[in-house]
């Protein structure tokens, strides 16, 4: 109880400490988004190994589709990293006046929002895996396969971009303060 009391006291007196504590938590939370690209790229790599095992002659084409697909699947993890770095090194809320509870919530929320990256990461990785598999079967169709794969992955990124926009709004526009 004493601890809680002193915690609240610090929070009321020193808003910057609140923001720094929240930023530490939120940058960690944001990186949970890395789960998605991890799983997704694993799926793509598995399909790559499988396809090369079947069709070793077309290793170059298969590897190219796998690498491109995986690199796109990494986007959500990169978004998480950008938000975490902003929180740690360029926190725009530091020095802002306002209710410390709202500041705390804004910072935590910006990190939490980036967890949404799990979805696009896994989904894009799945698409990369399918593209890799299809290239292994029909290497002649590589460019059409890649076009459809990249288009689908770009559409699949949309929710991750929504999350990034909300995260950046919470940090830079801070509509709740």
């Amino acid at each position, binding site marked *: 109880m004493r601890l809680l009391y002193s915690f609240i006291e610090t929070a009321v007196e020193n808003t910057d400490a609140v923001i720094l504590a929240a930023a530490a938590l939120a940058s960690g939370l944001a990186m949970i988004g890395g789960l998605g690209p991890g799983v997704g790229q694993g799926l793509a790599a598995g399909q790559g190994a499988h396809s090369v095992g079947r069709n070793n002659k077309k290793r170059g084409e298969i590897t190219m589709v796998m690498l491109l697909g995986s690199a*796109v699947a990494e986007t959500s993890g990169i978004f998480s990293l950008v938000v975490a*770095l902003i929180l740690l090194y360029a926190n725009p809320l530091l020095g802002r006046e306002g209710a410390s509870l709202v500041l705390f919530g804004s910072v935590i929320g910006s990190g939490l929002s980036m967890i949404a990256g799990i979805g696009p990461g896994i989904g894009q990785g799945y698409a990369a895996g399918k593209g890799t598999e299809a290239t292994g079967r029909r290497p002649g169709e590589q460019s059409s396969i890649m*076009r459809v794969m990249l*288009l689908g992955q770009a559409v699949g990124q*949309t929710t991750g971009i929504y999350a990034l926009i909300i995260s950046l709004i919470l940090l830079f526009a801070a509509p709740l303060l």
Partner: protein
Amino acid sequence: MNELVPRVIFVIPGIEIKVTETVVITWVIMAVLTVFAMISTRNLKKKPGKIQNAAELIVEYTEWLVDNTMGSGFKGFAPYIGTLSLYLLLANTAGVFPGLRSPSSDLNTPAALALISFLVIHYYGFYEKGTIGYVRSFFAPVPLLFPMNLIGELAFPVSLGFRLFGNMVGALVILELIYSAAPALAPVIPHIYFDLFAGLIQAFIFAMLTMTYLSLAVD
């Protein structure tokens, strides 16, 4: 950590414009590319010398890539794609040289390039489809999807720019941490991986996605 913001090299007196590292390194890259283009295309011969051979290889590969990715009838975009790729190849890998900072790790560079690609794509779509066809494409397949189409179009430059920026700035921070934690261990392998490999892949992806979207702009 001050590494996230590029250093200011000098300030233009009078109008107080800060010229950062990003701009100066971009000038150097522009100079390198211009000089290479001038030297390699001066007195062209039927039997090409070494430099002319290199230039021909670059042009042929770009045309092959554009043809292969976008289908025939898009050869006119080869100069744009080639310029974009050459600039990105040099910009993304500039961090290999000690003391240089990749211009791509400053958000302004990827944002500007993504904006250029976005404008090229929409100008081409507008040009090919005409006003009515262009406007109608936002209401396809059903008018109800207009907000989704609009957000999808606007999300393209955002994801294109942030993907490049995030990768390059991530590499910058990681290398900085390696330098501060273990400067004695020559970080050669991290440099090769983060600057060369990641930089080349990101340059390629940027060009590939631009080409893919360009070819879809007329569908």
